[in-house]
């Protein structure tokens, strides 16, 4: 596997010739062997069109391509790192949370309004995702950053999961999400519980939640 967790805040990636990695710029801590780091102006995969797409969607985190043969240590900003392995399904994550991912994964952007229309857009605003989010699809591993430790909550069709939008990190699988509001007269007079908005995820897959309500 390409990523090995060294501790909660550092991962080691093995790079072999012909198999490249993408990582956030400046996130390399150390490396052994002959490895080269090339800034990726397109911000990821695809041609010019997907680059423009990312620019418009504000999902164009500066990335670099890591190639060669050797091992590379990644870490950034003292954030906790969660390695997520994908077996053909799609991961939805904010671009600035991506620390590194294997080149075998297909990168794309998704308009949140396409999932639930206007409510999807509202949901994006509340969870800090904005109107767009990044998708990674295929077989491979992703290292995702979070503020504080991360727990994985499985979602099964019988058991939907409710998540604080600020603590939401990423999710994968066949998952529908909707914003459930519990706004009442208490919130109107400023005596709310502070938990008026929740993200309800249902279907089958998993959601990753960070132990903090702070954004990256």
């Amino acid at each position: 596997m390409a990523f090995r967790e060294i501790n909660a805040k550092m991962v080691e990636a093995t790079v072999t010739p012909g198999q490249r990695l993408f990582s956030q710029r400046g996130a390399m801590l150390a490396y052994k062997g002959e490895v080269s780091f090339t800034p990726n102006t397109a911000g990821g995969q695809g041609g010019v069109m997907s680059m423009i797409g990312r620019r418009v969607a504000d999902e164009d985190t500066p990335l670099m391509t890591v190639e060669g043969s050797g091992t590379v240590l990644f870490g950034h900003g003292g954030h906790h790192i969660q390695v997520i392995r994908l077996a053909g399904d799609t991961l939805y994550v904010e671009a600035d949370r991506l620390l590194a991912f294997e080149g075998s994964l297909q990168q794309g952007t998704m308009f949140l309004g396409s999932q639930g229309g206007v409510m999807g857009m509202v949901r994006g605003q509340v969870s800090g995702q904005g109107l767009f989010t990044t998708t990674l699809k295929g077989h491979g591993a992703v290292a995702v950053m979070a503020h504080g430790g991360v727990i994985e909550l499985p979602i099964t069709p019988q058991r939907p999961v409710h998540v604080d939008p600020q603590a939401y990190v990423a999710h994968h699988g066949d998952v529908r999400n909707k914003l459930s509001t519990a706004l009442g007269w208490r919130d109107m007079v400023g005596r709310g519980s502070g938990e008026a908005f929740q993200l309800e995820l249902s279907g089958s897959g998993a959601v990753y939640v960070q132990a903090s309500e702070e954004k990256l």
Partner: protein
Amino acid sequence: MSTYGTPGAGPAVFDPASLPPDDNVNPYTFCVELKGSQWFLQKGKMIAYYGSIDFNGVGHGRLDRLVRTSFHSPLHASDWVVAEGSGKMLLADRAFDVNSFDLEDGNLTIRSGNLLAFQPTLALKQSIVPGFLTLIGTGKFVAASNGPVVFMEPPIRVDPQALVGWADCPSPCHHYDHGYMTGVMGGLRALTGLGGVSGEEHQFEFVGAGTVLLQSSETLMAEQATGSVPHQAGVPGGGASGTPPGQSGAPRLPGQLGDLQRRFGL
């Protein structure tokens, strides 16, 4: 290592007897046991203590001998205090991970901001590398890092911010991604700042036998002054020779490689 052993059991409560002597209480706190002995610590890193412990500024009359034997950098002695007496004291630093390391007739060079405390059996000296301190001898010291410290064997290239220190003298030197900075594209990038930098054009390279200490984040701890070095020709950082005036000190813009451009003939 969790202080919360079993869920629902609540936090562990320590008293003078149950505090671990010379060991970690949790990843962020270290307990030092003093039995009439002395420890050097950086100012402001003690958070609590049991027993009777005196804290004296270094260079305090009767501590003069100590400075002479184990503190060879009188220039920054004012940043350090000597704790002596008997009891247990707790050291911590802004919730960074804290760990103790044992040196046995060895040497270790560490970033000045990361060193919290050390036993007087070790000698502390300024490193030739500016901003680093070298510990020589046998004894224990306590260091803080952002995330646990990871030990790596050379040959390795390390991001400057992720470097905590190195032991047993692997030769540290600068490594520049030559291929990336030269050529037509490299020149264009250096001139215009366009095309972006990968942020990884420059590393510290370590070769030879030894150990390199890394922290798992690029967030630096506040730099601790190591004192100035004698203004002499040939002393790195001494400023008496080499660097032409006006070259150093100017803030470097992102994407601009400063005097490197000149060095590679760009």
